């Protein structure tokens, strides 16, 4: 299977502290990966480092076989940052105007054409936002805002979608719908997904791999192997309980 991302011996220092130390992992095409770990463990740092947004001390990062510094095809990757929905609610953009921004980037100054608007309509339809297409972005609920960001990512036709804690602020029923859409994207459209999540039940039920970040980075397939990895990552202060048949996991202090 095609290697989407290859990380070797990655070391990242932020504010004088080693946040990521010797990370090694691969992401294959079609993977649906949950990135978990304690708060301050380095999940967001890891994402920003693999996207080249923060410098690394050492190690190599390859996207689609190309070293990060030589990689130019950023349209193949879409990223939704943490707290993306905390924007100025008076920002004068309609949902449609916002989503079409996702079509930018390949060539600056390119005119938005009918095909672009059709892609926007399709993405809004897929994310269940067609009815609010002409509303201002500040008028949407938290769940709708998050789906709007995914719609903007989708119009770029990405091969990889990276989301940093996308479900924060959503109620349980909206979360479930959101994860359904993510699974559809992964299974039907073969989009590789990396998602930071604190919801272990979702990670263990819906995703095929776990990346656990707590300064060191542990990778495992979902299942018994992942349980070991989580124990290593969280240390002896946590006792991990994993009910495979119920498909849920939790930490007990």
């Amino acid at each position: 299977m095609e290697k989407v991302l290859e990380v070797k011996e990655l070391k990242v220092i932020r504010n004088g502290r080693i946040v990521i130390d010797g990370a090694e992992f691969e992401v294959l095409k079609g993977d649906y990966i949950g990135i978990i770990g304690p708060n301050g463990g380095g999940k967001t740092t890891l994402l920003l480092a693999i996207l080249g947004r923060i410098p690394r001390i050492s190690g190599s990062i390859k996207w689609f076989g190309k070293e990060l510094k030589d990689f130019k095809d950023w349209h193949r990757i879409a990223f939704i940052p943490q707290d993306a929905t905390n924007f100025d609610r008076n920002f004068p953009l309609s949902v449609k105007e916002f989503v079409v921004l996702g079509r930018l980037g390949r060539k600056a100054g390119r005119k938005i054409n009918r095909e672009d608007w059709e892609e926007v309509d399709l993405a809004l339809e897929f994310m269940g936002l067609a009815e609010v297409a002409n509303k201002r972005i500040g008028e949407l609920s938290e769940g709708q805002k998050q789906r709007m960001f995914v719609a903007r990512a989708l119009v770029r036709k990405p091969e990889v979608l990276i989301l940093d804690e996308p479900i924060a602020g959503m109620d349980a029923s909206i979360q479930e719908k959101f994860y359904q859409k993510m699974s559809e994207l992964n299974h039907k459209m073969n989009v590789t997904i990396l998602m930071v999540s604190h919801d272990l039940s979702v990670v263990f039920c819906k995703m095929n791999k776990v990346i656990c970040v707590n300064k060191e980075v542990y990778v495992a397939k979902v299942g018994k192997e992942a349980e070991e990895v989580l124990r290593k990552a969280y240390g002896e202060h946590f006792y991990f309980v994993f009910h495979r048949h119920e498909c849920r996991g939790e930490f007990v202090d």
Partner: protein
Amino acid sequence: MIELLNYQFFQNAIIGGILIGIISAWIGLFLVLKKESMIVDGAAHTAFGGLALGLLIGIDPFLTALIVSIISIFLISHMRSKGHAYSDSAIALMLAVGFSIGLAIISVTRGFGVDIFSFLFGSILTISREEIILITLLATSIAAFLSNFHREILAIIFNEDEAKIMGIPVRRISICFNLMIAVAIILSIKMVGTVLVVALMVIPALAALRLKCSFIKTLISSITIAIIGVISGIIISAYYRIATSAMIVLILLLIYMIIVVRKRW
């Protein structure tokens, strides 16, 4: 009123005013969204130093003002991005330095025998045919840039980091946008002067944003408000012999207040 339209100076003022109003409102909207509207005030006051410098060395003062204004905008951006100063402190610093230099030069040379008030408060009614041609060329260039890149600028304002990841050439577009701000400020100084230029760029945007529309509607509203303010300001000032810049700004304020009150109801 009809008689006024027969005068060349009045026709020039209206044409120049509309063109300057359009680009000021357009750029002003982006600056308000970027929460950097005070950069206009900083660069405009710094440009006053440039105007004085031009008069001192005997070249077109608006050319030196443009150069000084460009330098000040880039210095403010540099100080902010490198963490040397917060945005408001960097603006205050440039404003004070530029204005003091201008004041010092003018006081030493006893005012060069020119009307300093025209720089401070504008002189749209004295605009010449040649200046109209120059304004048209510059305004068209700015409008072409903004219409081609307005979505990229919006994406950068919304979230610069995301824009970089999306592959938008953030640095190049930001440099061009800063240049456009400087040109728009110098053109606006001709109309309303260094003291009130910030009002011409900011009030139409603030009023349009109160309407709570999509971006395109907000932009059209902002430009429309600026045009109404400029035309009626020029007419009333010419008719009643009131300072044009003050009249334009007061009408823009009136429009803003009407929108605020109507929206409350």
